[in-house]
């Protein structure tokens, strides 16, 4: 954990500099010229700049603290083994799912997504996979429609 803290504090320090000198000047856009005699505090970039400045100080103090004190913390129990690839996969699958919601809509995308995730998580028993990936999404769709008149994404391919 100590090494992690050192890395993260350096990353945060870099982020502070990057924000201060690049993101804040380029990503705060005023469509109306701000009056000249406006005090600096009222400018839109005042608070972000202040925040980033303190962030830089905090990162340095985290860096010092993590070099000075050895605080090894055991993170997780035996249930976990490092499975970063699975985390990345689930994340990207979810992202793909959201994109497919835009084009194919809820009714088609959801069961496929659910089935893949369930199987990925190690459950291959039909009695569970089918109801969860088919009936649950269907139930949700009807529930939202009948009780709240909420329309879940219909898919742009089918709307045009």
């Amino acid at each position, binding site marked *: 954990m100590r090494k992690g803290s050192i890395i993260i504090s350096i990353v945060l320090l870099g982020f502070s500099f990057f924000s201060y000198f690049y993101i804040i000047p380029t990503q705060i*856009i*005023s*469509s*109306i*010229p701000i009056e000249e005699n406006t005090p600096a505090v009222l400018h839109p970039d005042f608070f972000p700049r202040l925040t980033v400045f303190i962030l830089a100080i905090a990162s340095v103090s985290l860096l010092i603290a993590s070099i000075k004190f050895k605080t090894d913390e055991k993170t997780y129990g035996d249930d976990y083994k490092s499975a970063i690839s699975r985390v990345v996969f689930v994340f990207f699958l979810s992202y793909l799912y959201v994109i497919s919601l835009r084009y194919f*809509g809820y*009714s*088609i995308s*959801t*069961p*496929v997504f659910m*089935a*893949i995730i369930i*199987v990925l998580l190690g459950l*291959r*028993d*039909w009695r569970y*996979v*089918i109801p969860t*990936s*088919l009936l649950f999404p*269907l139930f949700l769709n009807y529930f939202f429609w009948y009780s709240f*008149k*909420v*329309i879940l994404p219909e898919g*742009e391919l*089918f*709307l*045009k």
Partner: protein
Amino acid sequence: MGKFKFLLVVVLALSLTTLFMGLGDSHARKFPWKPIKVIVPLGAGGSHDLNTRAVASVAYDYLGQPMIVQLMPGGGGKIAMHALKRAKNDGHTLLMSSASHLTIGPHVRKMGYDPLNDFEFVFMFTKADYMMAAMASQPWKGFKQFIAAAKKNPGKISYGSSGIYGTGHLMLLKIMADTGAKIKHIPFKGGGPAYRAGLGGHIDTFGALPATGGTLGRYRRGQVQILGVCSKKRIKMFPKVPTMIENGVDFVLASKRSIIAPKGTPKETIDFLVSAFKKLVKNKTYIKLLKKMGEKPSPLWGPALKQDFADEHAAFGKILASIGVKKK
């Protein structure tokens, strides 16, 4: 259980869901053949939302299909406008517009749509005339004295608006331009907080609508004074209140609720909607609901409606250009 069975799940899932999608897509259909979706570009519970729901609550009898209200307040309403622009122009997706997304926003920011040419203007249901209010306890009474006081102490008297570049802010800009008075502008987040700060005596003047927050009651009890109403003629509810035009400020502003549709929606469909809505605004339940909100229908449609939007668009553009607003 291997890959084969997994694939089978996918195929099964796909085929079953397409079944539920409803494949019946016959050609000779009479509008409307499915529920009509009305997008509201503002948040839940606002007067815009409640107005739309009042329409939707009786719409079935006139349209033959239910009307579904879909709230899309994200991105300052821009997301809703784009959703409408992208929607299929068959009349099943409509939008209950408010002025700021069509007549102000495009002057201030890049919106990615042409407010007057990307949409069809269908029907206006109601409008609420904008008013300028102040507490009755102020030393000045009425608009003339207010302006005189503001000129005497430039930048000391404050006005709380519903937000920067909101409709209320435009009113202030126009007042300052036409009278030469200098008034301090305090932007709030929404009309409610500004109104509250006004009643609490934290700001001197503020915007109000006839119906909201018990304005009428406070006015009658002598707690609040109304400096002017931004309508062409004096309004019935406040017969003694002068219009802004009478005050020497050429400014007309109302919070309007108009249905607009994507460009290219067939003329027959629009005609159908207009004739249905014309009957709808005479519905007793609808009128009763509006009356309870302190409003009444003021229907407008066809070229007159579009002209109304075009006029407002031009007028606001002029005000904003005069203070140097540039799109970036």
